[in-house]
């Protein structure tokens, strides 16, 4: 539908802007967010129109910030909501669900969602070049979807990144730029490049549109639960955007009359080695102190997160909580999820499940609560995090006797 986007609005001072490739309020420098014409959307959107849509995040196109039809990432989203009966039984939960974005298309992480929206929007705005600063999942998603869309692509990374992660981007043939310097240097340079070049920098000037793609996780969850919001959700925090957008998405569904009032409690999950947001929340302060990350959960290792303040705010609004887990707990939780539900998550998934365990132990999630844990990336991408902790194969000779002697329980 056309006319659903009113424009952009400053999250701080409320000043309105046209729906352009801008991300900062010129008045107060606050972040901009998409503002929708919900009355118009309500006229055309219903459970039926959604259910008749494609089996992708684009079934919710009327609540996503694009004016025309979807053109990039057409198969992203609509991932399984797995009723995790085995893990639930282990933890003492009857209604535990895993929103399984380890199988997202095309690059096996939730970033496929946000990039599908960002590149579709960038294309309809007339951009031919896309860019991002990323060390992992985001770069994969941008490079892959830009390749499919035939768009020129630049990926900026720190020069000391592991070779495996570089390869995961090079295969799609973007221009990968290694910046000699630390993370702060790359951040600063990318802000300057985004300000100067007419590129769609997905997490800078296209960020207001890009971030909205995360709402699709909330939309799909509600639909897959039979059009209701969960009682509890556990969400990993990197920039903090995912948590704020899940909150926004659930409340939009209620505003449009698609679900009952939202009573969901948000629970934010971080790794102990990079927990600026969870630490601030636990201390009862609104503003976090930036940290230098030191954790195996690299995809969550944002020491100075752009939406940290807003994630704290949304969590308070929902009367939820935040917590963090150690690297050992992350590994244990990755193994637990794999061994109970057959889902191999990357380290961020270990953070989510680790914090879920703590929430149950601390009595914040009860046995009958409908609980959704967001598992946002595939374990095949971070095998090095668990390779020392999964044992070795049993080695035998190619003889039956060797098999029976060398393999326990063979008989």
């Amino acid at each position, binding site marked *: 539908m056309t006319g659903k986007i009113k424009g952009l609005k400053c999250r701080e001072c409320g000043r309105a802007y046209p729906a352009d490739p801008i991300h900062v309020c010129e008045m*107060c420098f606050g972040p901009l967010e998409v503002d929708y014409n919900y009355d118009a959307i309500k006229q055309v959107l219903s459970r039926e129109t959604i259910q008749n849509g494609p089996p992708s995040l684009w079934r919710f196109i009327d609540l996503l910030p694009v004016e025309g039809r979807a053109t990039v990432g057409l198969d992203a989203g609509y991932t399984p909501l797995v009723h995790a009966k085995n893990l639930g039984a282990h933890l003492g939960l009857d209604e535990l669900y895993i929103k399984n974005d380890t199988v997202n298309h095309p690059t096996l992480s939730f970033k496929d969602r946000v990039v599908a929206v960002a590149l579709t929007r960038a294309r309809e705005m007339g951009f031919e070049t896309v860019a991002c600063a990323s060390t992992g999942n985001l770069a994969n998603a941008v490079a892959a979807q830009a390749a499919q869309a035939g768009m020129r692509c630049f990926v900026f990374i720190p020069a000391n990144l592991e070779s495996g992660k570089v390869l995961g981007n090079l295969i799609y043939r973007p221009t990968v730029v290694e910046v000699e310097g630390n993370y702060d240097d790359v951040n600063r340079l990318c802000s300057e490049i985004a300000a100067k070049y007419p590129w769609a920098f997905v997490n800078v000037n296209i960020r207001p549109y890009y971030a909205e793609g995360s709402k699709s996780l909330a939309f799909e969850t509600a639909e897959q639960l039979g059009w209701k919001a969960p009682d509890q959700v556990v969400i990993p925090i990197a920039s903090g955007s995912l948590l704020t957008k899940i909150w926004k998405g659930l409340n939009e569904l209620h505003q449009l009359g698609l679900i009952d009032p939202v009573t969901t409690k948000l629970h934010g999950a971080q790794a102990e080695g990079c927990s600026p947001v969870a630490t601030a929340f636990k201390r009862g302060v609104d*503003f976090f102190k930036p940290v230098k990350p030191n954790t195996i959960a690299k995809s969550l290792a944002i020491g*100075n997160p752009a939406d940290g303040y807003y994630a704290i705010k949304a969590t308070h609004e929902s009367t939820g909580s935040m917590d963090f887990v150690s690297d050992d707990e992350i590994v244990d939780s990755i193994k637990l999820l794999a061994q109970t539900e057959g889902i191999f998550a990357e380290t961020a998934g270990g953070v989510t499940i680790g914090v879920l365990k703590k929430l149950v132990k601390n009595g914040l999630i009860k046995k009958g609560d409908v609980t959704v844990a967001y598992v946002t990336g595939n374990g095949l991408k971070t095998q090095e995090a668990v390779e020392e902790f999964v044992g070795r194969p049993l080695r035998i000779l190619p003889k039956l006797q060797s098999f029976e002697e060398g393999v326990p329980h063979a008989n």
Partner: protein
Amino acid sequence: MASLKYHLRFPEEKIPHPVVYEIGQEYPVVTNIRGANVTETTGWLNLELTGDIADIEQAVEGLKQKGVQVDPIELDVIE
């Protein structure tokens, strides 16, 4: 000539210091405060610096040397 936007955070001991004034005096850049929240224990402000890129970069280094945390207005963009 360029204009770049930064988010500054002040540690408690730097809050009484006129850091922005000093930077405007020490480097050929125009300082323009667009948002701020300063208390007795913590403080942040959104600052625009206008000038030649090289001068802005030196002014940013100068701010860091004065003990201020300086980040792009977007904070961390690497994900």
